């Protein structure tokens, strides 16, 4: 699991007192009180297409290595639809790849749900903090989805989310594969008023010999209205799914 030794606890009190004012749209105050307020506009601090393991290397199993090498080969050949339907079709990148989104995103903390509202293609991802199950007449809950099912809770100042139920049609990043058994644990916390940390732990016994960690840092951005972004229009115009 992720080490938490670097936690700057001193920042916490400042945050708790300051965050509610940090962004205009919380002015009407639906966000839950008593937990840190992560709402705002955020963007990755250091853009990257790779989920970099804290330990240096992705601990592939032989099957994992094989699938990874196959993806690299397909990437070199430009056969994106054969391994990465986010690039070829604008399909939701899923968890945890969304953590690497190069554009901005908003976080909403409302009604027992944390919503990640991405500038890119209007993508959405949510963490359930306590919404009870609802009727499911078509059995949609039976099938895997790109963003899976994320259940979250607060541990002090940290939002902990555990995701499973992911489709095998997403990748960990632009190359690293996973299977249906993917489990992603995330720990979100403000390490400074305008700095959000996501410590990610990735488990998938078919692909990785052990759980591995990565850390992604986001910087708060000015409040903004996202322009309507339609990735499939870029694909139709022969442009890349992620705008340059």
């Amino acid at each position, binding site marked *: 699991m992720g080490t938490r030794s670097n936690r700057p606890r001193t920042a916490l009190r400042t945050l708790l007192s300051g965050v509610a004012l940090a962004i205009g749209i919380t002015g009407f105050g639906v966000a839950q009180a008593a937990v840190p307020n992560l709402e705002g506009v955020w963007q990755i601090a250091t853009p990257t297409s790779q989920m970099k393991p804290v330990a240096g290397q992705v601990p592939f199993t032989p099957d994992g290595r094989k699938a990874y090498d196959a993806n690299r080969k397909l990437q070199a050949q430009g056969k994106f639809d054969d391994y990465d339907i986010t690039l070829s079709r604008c399909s939701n990148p899923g968890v945890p790849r969304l953590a690497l989104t190069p554009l901005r995103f908003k976080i909403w903390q409302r009604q027992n749900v944390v919503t990640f509202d991405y500038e890119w293609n209007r993508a959405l991802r949510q963490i359930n903090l306590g919404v009870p199950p609802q009727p499911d007449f078509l*059995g949609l809950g039976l099938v895997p989805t790109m963003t899976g099912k994320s259940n979250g809770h607060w541990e002090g100042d940290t939002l902990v989310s555990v995701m499973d139920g992911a489709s095998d049609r997403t990748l960990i990043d632009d190359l690293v594969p996973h299977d249906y058994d993917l489990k992603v644990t995330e720990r979100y916390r403000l390490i400074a008023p305008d700095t959000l940390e996501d410590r990610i732990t990735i488990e998938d016994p078919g692909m990785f010999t052990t759980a591995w960690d990565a850390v992604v840092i986001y910087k708060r951005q000015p409040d903004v209205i996202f322009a309507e972004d339609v990735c499939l229009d870029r694909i139709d115009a022969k442009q890349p799914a992620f705008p340059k």
Partner: protein
Amino acid sequence: MNRLKMRWLAGLVAGAALGVGLGAAPAVAHHSFAAYDMNQTLSAEGTLKEFRWGAPHSSLVLIYLDKGAEKQMSIISGSPLLFSKQGLSPRDFKRGDKIKVTYHPNTSGQPGGALATLKLPNGKAFSDTEAARAGGN
């Protein structure tokens, strides 16, 4: 003649309503009911390119040989619940599997249509009872 098919998952269409609970039914029907020729059942076999669960409808893509040339067709399928009731889960559908299907073809003449039956290489089979009720088979 029964070309009208009240089939809630067949909504490719505008039918966005799809993934959505019972309300989906009519929304999907409005466009899909006319899209398949329920009097005809064709069969095909080939390689499963992928199975897409969910919005705006579930569907599978079959790679088949047409006069020696590889082609792809999309076949609309029933709800996840329908598959589940017949003992099938997403993990049963492996990309690259050889499968056999029967289907009601698109009225428009494009390859593909609405699934009637499906057989997987592991012997598991699926019969679209929604399609059967709607007058197919």
